[in-house]
């Protein structure tokens, strides 16, 4: 199966592993890779406004760094890399971007422990239920 347009998303963790597996799929085929980073903007009630703004600024800055690193990983003659930095709910935004850009494959990391999944929730689980394309979930937890 040849994928012409691949969406890769990461929070920065395990980016090496995610990029390596994606590159193996791409091999020598001409491919569009869209790097996506979603800045999660939701905060609980009573979060000070200035702190909320500070969080968004820091996460945006981190997002740019992650996308820079991603661009570096996907630097190859057969790959056209583009980037999207969005604000919102990560799962919702990833699905929307995949739909809007008509991607063939969505690549993301997964592998939180059961405890973490219950305490923090899982973006990949939410995406799996509504993704408009094939998904490659890369297990990122070290054994």
């Amino acid at each position: 199966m040849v994928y012409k347009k691949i969406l890769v998303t990461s929070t920065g963790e395990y980016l090496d592993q995610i990029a390596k597996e994606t590159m193996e799929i791409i091999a020598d085929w001409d491919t569009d890779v869209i790097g996506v980073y979603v800045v999660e903007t939701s905060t609980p009630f009573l979060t000070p406004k200035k702190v909320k703004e500070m969080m968004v600024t820091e996460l945006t800055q981190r997002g740019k760094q992650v996308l820079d690193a991603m661009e570096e990983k996907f630097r190859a003659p057969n790959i056209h890399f583009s980037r999207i930095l969005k604000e919102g709910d990560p799962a919702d935004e990833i699905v929307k971007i995949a739909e809007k850009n008509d991607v063939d494959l969505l690549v993301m990391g997964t592998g939180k422990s059961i405890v973490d999944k219950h305490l923090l929730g899982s973006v990949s689980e939410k995406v799996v239920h509504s993704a408009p394309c094939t998904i490659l979930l890369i297990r990122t937890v070290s054994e």
Partner: protein
Amino acid sequence: MFMLWIIALVTILIVSLIIVIKAADIFVDKIVEIGGIIGISEIILGVTASAIGTSLPEFGSAVMAALFNSPDLGVGVVIGSNIWNIAGILGISAIFAGTIRSSPKGITRDGAFTLLTAFILLGFMYFRGVVDIYASIIFVIVYSIYLWILIRDQKKEVEKNKADKQEKIVTPKGGDAIADHPPEEKKKIGFGMIAWSLVGLAGLIVGCRLLVYSGTELAIIANIPQMIMGLFTLAIGTSIPELVVTFNSARKGLHDLSIGTILGSNTFNIMIGLGIPAIFMSVPIEHLSYTFDAPVMIFVTVLVLLLIKRGMKLTRVDGFILALTYITYAVLRIYVLG
């Protein structure tokens, strides 16, 4: 009738807490906006807003407690908040988030100041038995030095980021990309801005007064010392902003903000939260405050710094250690020492 009065007081306590927290938020937000328009550097505004933003409720309660003759309540709020911030909030956040990382600078700079301020407070408590105008002067000087260091570090950070900044935005075929923010129009100080900052200030004053009033009345009805009311109920209540910020930033991986909020808040609580009320009146210190509460505050500060120092992070196990420490302290303080 008596039961209704208790329900009313608890309701006033909860409502006033929400008023205090929201009012402090509005006040800081508008003051920063006005400060920006009159030309105060964004760095200075950013650093002070984040340092003060979450701690205004503790500060307001301590001032009100001092002004309305409940100094024990004020001391309790400050020391209780500091213990809760570290052992309770960092403990809970580490348990839920799994890991909270820290940078060496955050620990050496903010950790050292938190510890230093706790020792200065203990020194005044132990040798003078009172937090008075002399303590105020030292507290305010030390806090000014801390703010100056924060602003200096932030300036360096901003300059470093400017040098590194090379944004490249490529729009994917058929997709969309985030654009650079357009330059903001130069704003003027409007009536609304001033009105909202006054509303925030008024809300803070009224809310803190109601908070202290309901806390004091409930302490009398329940026949518990005001100190206990301050150490636990008001301390935990006024620390809600720290809880939401620390937990949320830990969950989002903004680790420096998470630990920095707690350490910065603890420094502010002592230096300003106790320092400013002591300008109006000498705050007498209860025996148990300097023989038990303040040493516990220093103990949990040292404990968290040691736990972080091991691997520059707090783990879930560390979170449990901190939370258990808080529970032990609360049980001992309420049921054994009274």
